[in-house]
């Protein structure tokens, strides 16, 4: 492990090679992205608090659903997609909330913003780390869901995995941006779902419907996957374009 790779100064590309600092005042966007994502993931995996909480929370949601609606295969055929995504959404909100919470301590965010790193790359790095966290948790929750809710034999798991990838991208892209947007607010933990959920409505409809189609083994998922992909591309681009608006010193 390189020394100081998880400190804010590493993001500016200065710490690993101090001699090169004057020659490269503005580090490349990809390097910043990679450094931010790696640092965040390393911190998360070292503590493992958030991952454990997300897993347990998602599991609880799934179990409580199975009490609320008797978990028969017939039910999974009709509403399984919705149940799965509510569990993923609740678990994901825990990770999204943390994306910028860590930087609030010791004015770390101000340090990041003051560094010459491109803001869009910082945001993209946070997005990559959060999306990776969510996908890891979802990789454990999905088989549990399949067992507890007696997934239908006709279910096409390749399609469901694709939907999970695209849906997590949608939630993580907007969620990371809104997490940055909420850092200055009072009650920021309350604010994030209020900001994310209304904007995520079309993505939620698309991911639930696509999952439902793949669970039931029926046709018609192409439209939803295309819509989800379009949503991902449009909102990721919007987040990159508007990155300076949320990550700027007062």
């Amino acid at each position, binding site marked *: 492990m390189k020394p100081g790779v998880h400190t804010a100064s590493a993001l500016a590309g200065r710490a690993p090679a101090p001699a090169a600092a004057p020659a490269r005042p503005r580090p490349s966007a990809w390097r910043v992205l990679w450094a931010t994502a790696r640092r965040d993931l390393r911190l998360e995996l070292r503590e493992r608090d958030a991952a454990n909480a997300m897993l347990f929370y998602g599991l609880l949601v799934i179990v409580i659903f199975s009490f609320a609606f008797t978990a028969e295969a017939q039910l999974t055929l009709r509403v399984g997609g919705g149940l799965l995504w509510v569990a993923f959404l609740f678990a994901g909100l825990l990770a999204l909330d943390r994306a910028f919470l860590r930087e609030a301590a010791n004015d770390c965010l101000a340090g990041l913003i003051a560094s010459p790193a491109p803001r869009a790359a910082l945001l993209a790095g946070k997005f990559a780390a959060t999306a990776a966290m969510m996908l890891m948790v979802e990789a454990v929750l999905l088989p549990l869901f399949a067992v507890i809710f007696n997934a239908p034999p006709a279910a096409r798991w390749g399609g469901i995995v694709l939907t999970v990838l695209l849906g997590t991208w949608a939630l993580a892209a907007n969620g990371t941006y*809104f997490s940055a*947007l909420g850092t200055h*607010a009072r009650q920021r933990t309350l*604010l994030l779902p209020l900001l994310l959920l*209304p*904007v995520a409505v*079309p993505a939620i409809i698309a991911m639930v419907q696509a999952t439902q189609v793949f669970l039931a083994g029926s046709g018609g998922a192409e439209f939803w996957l295309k*819509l989800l992909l379009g949503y991902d591309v449009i909102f990721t681009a919007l987040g990159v374009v508007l990155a300076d*608006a949320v990550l700027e010193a007062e």
Partner: protein
Amino acid sequence: MTTPTPTRSAPLRRRAAAGGAWLYWWGGVTLALLLYGLVQALLLAPTEATMGIYYRIFYFHVPAGITGFAAFGVNAAASLWYLLRPRKAADALALAAAETGVVFLAVNLITGPIWAKPIWGVWWVWDPRLTLTLVIWIMYVSYLVLRQFTPRSELQPRLAAAYAMFLFIAVPIDYMAIRWWRTQHPQPVIFGGPNSGLDPHMAYALVVCLLAFLALMATLMRFRHRQEMLSHEILRRQRAAALKES
């Protein structure tokens, strides 16, 4: 300072703060239009053949919806203006537009079910248009919550403007998703819509009501905009006064 000046200038200042002559003129025109529209809608326009008297709710319901969406359009334009050129006036306009839009769309959403109950037999159906309206209303309530939760600073207008861009971009995607989602399911009771073969007198009454609502929107928006600018001015003067005293 002489003693008579403050007592004489106080009412003048009060009027200037509230909007001055503009408010009285526009408020008067708006009120007249609203009353004329009310008479047209409730008394003069002919009763519709199939829905009977209930159709008269449309004279409030439809203009309120159109006006609400127009206000959200103003919000998007003002937010974009702020992102390109950060001016307090642009931010105040965005806030005023979002607030009036939420009010008008709330009227639209409340009068809708009151009409639907006797005609469709249910308060609410998840028809594409209803769903979209509800989702958009919720989005702009979120926008107002964001503004409420963010402390007043140089940063707040920029955060709000960025969020407004996300909302505006989400609207067409919402439209596609919701329409596709609903058309896959059995449709609820379908009615011809008010535009199919509209009686000329009905159309006239509807246009009058729409103009009245748009005028009301302009009045409310302008008033709210002035309040916001005034509060900026008060903040500036309070800071200056505090600086002078210290």
